[in-house]
């Protein structure tokens, strides 16, 4: 009996996986997306080759490297360790800054939300520092921190920190008072109220903050790498990879760097989304 149940269970799982693929293939939205990307690439290719095809370079588009050239340039750098080293370095910095921002930002935001005195003391200076763009911190942090690496990590941290705190604070402050009242009337202590009501109630905002913060971290890390520059063998990261390609005059390689960052950013936000769905199973339904 148990064996039968096991078998039918795995059959159900396999078929549901297959049906997911089927669903994707049957989905017209999916195909529209694919077609749109192909059309876009074709137009780009035509535009970039307009000079050699029509004898007349289209404005702006005519200056771009064609997608085919980008693919060639990409296949060349793919085998170079320096390219992967750039990925690794940028990812390391993003993760470092991002995690530090989470570890400090979430408790800080929650404290601001639940404690009035804490809020009255720390919120005003926070609000003054918040509008300063992370990149405006670069020169000061280059002077302040002993190594380039630490300055980049610090600036990346700032990029995510403010967004995370604001989201956590907003999320925790807008938890419906009915939940708090219901919990209190059922006998929840302050401890329970915090861990069982305020924290789960804030999770959606924590993940919104994380998703937005992750995007900002990538923006900041690339810019910081360009400014602080340097390093051999790709230790400058993807930002410096682009800058270096610019200095070397390799247009296709610039585009390779740009698309690499796009992919890296997509992977990061997918990871956050995946984690969010794991941590908040009830949120599938919203």
């Amino acid at each position, binding site marked *: 009996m148990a064996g039968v149940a096991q078998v039918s269970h795995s059959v159900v799982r396999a078929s549901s996986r297959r049906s997911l693929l089927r669903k994707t293939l049957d989905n017209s939205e999916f195909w529209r997306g694919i077609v749109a990307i192909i059309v876009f690439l074709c137009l780009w290719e035509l535009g970039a080759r307009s000079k050699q095809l029509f004898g007349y370079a289209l404005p702006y588009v005519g200056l771009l490297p064609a997608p085919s050239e980008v693919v060639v340039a990409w296949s060349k750098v793919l085998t170079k360790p320096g390219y992967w080293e750039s990925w690794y370095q940028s990812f390391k910095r993003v993760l470092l800054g991002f995690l530090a921002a989470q570890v400090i930002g979430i408790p800080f935001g929650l404290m601001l939300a639940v404690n009035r005195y804490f809020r009255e003391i720390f919120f005003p200076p926070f609000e003054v520092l918040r509008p300063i763009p992370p990149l405006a911190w670069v020169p000061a942090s280059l002077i302040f921190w002993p190594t380039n690496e630490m300055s980049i990590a610090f600036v990346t941290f700032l990029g995510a920190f403010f967004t995370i705190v604001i989201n956590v604070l907003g999320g925790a402050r807008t938890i*419906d008072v*009915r*939940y708090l*009242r*219901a*919990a*209190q*009337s*059922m*006998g*929840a*202590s302050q401890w*329970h109220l915090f861990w*069982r*009501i305020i924290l*789960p*109630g804030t*999770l959606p905002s924590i993940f919104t903050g994380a998703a937005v913060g992750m995007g900002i971290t990538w923006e900041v890390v690339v810019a910081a790498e360009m400014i602080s520059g340097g390093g051999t063998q790709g230790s400058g990261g993807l930002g410096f990879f682009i800058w270096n390609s610019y200095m070397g005059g390799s247009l296709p390689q610039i585009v390779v760097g740009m698309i690499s960052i796009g992919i890296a950013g997509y992977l990061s936000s997918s990871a956050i989304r995946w984690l969010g769905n794991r941590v*908040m*199973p*009830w949120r599938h*339904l*919203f």
Partner: protein
Amino acid sequence: MQKYTASNRPGSPQSRGALSIRNVSKVYDPEGVNVMAVDHCSMEIAPGEVCMIVGPSGCGKTTLLNAIAGFHSITTGEIRLDGELLCGPGKPLADQGADRIVVFQQGALFPWKTLAENVAYGPMVQGVLSKRRAIEKARDMLAEAGLGDFGDKYPGEVSSGMARRAEIVRALINNPRVLLLDEPYRAMDALTKAIMHEALLEMYDRTKVTIFFITHDLEEAIFLGDRVYVLTTRPCSLKKVVDVKIPRPRNYEVLTSEQFRLLVEETKDAVHEEAIKAFQLGERELA
């Protein structure tokens, strides 16, 4: 502050839940302008009574409920539950406790917990039952309420009717002395409402808990209640009490009976009068 738990609950089910509201007034003072919400309101609610509170919108019904639940303070008068002082002179705000549980208008099941976890919440945080035992009991009680198959669902996955029913179960698991319902079925269509009424009556017949039920719907009030308390427009005080002597258990045939029709008529006049006053009051305030 002594917390009410299942272990120190006084009295047997039949003798608990006498709620007495004596001369209660509530004055709100926003920006120095005194607004009287409740004006010397008195009611004596017997143990196990289904007490239906009817009155015009904004008349102060919810203020009264909030005072009983301990969400808001009162200005004068006193409220006692089984003779114990909840709030009164020198103690304007009642302690919140699991002996008086509120079911809110928009529902307040925790969206991040399954129905079973929601129901188990009270006994768990009070430390009355271990988590495992609390969940077991929650499942049993959900099954009794016809929600046996939905214990593992999140509130967002079930209909609003089921969610509301689960919320009442979540209140009842604490074995409260009074169940406070603030227009729980307001936003529901008539058919769902009818099902909810039957479910509530069925739960009431099992527990005989005192119910303090705020509503706008006269027929709902008479169908469910032992007594209907009609309140005046703001500041609210008691205008009329209608005894509903329809025998229990009740079912939907009651709605078409002559006795029911007469009761509706008797209540409607009083309510209508106050509704008109409230309407005119509203017009004057705006002018």
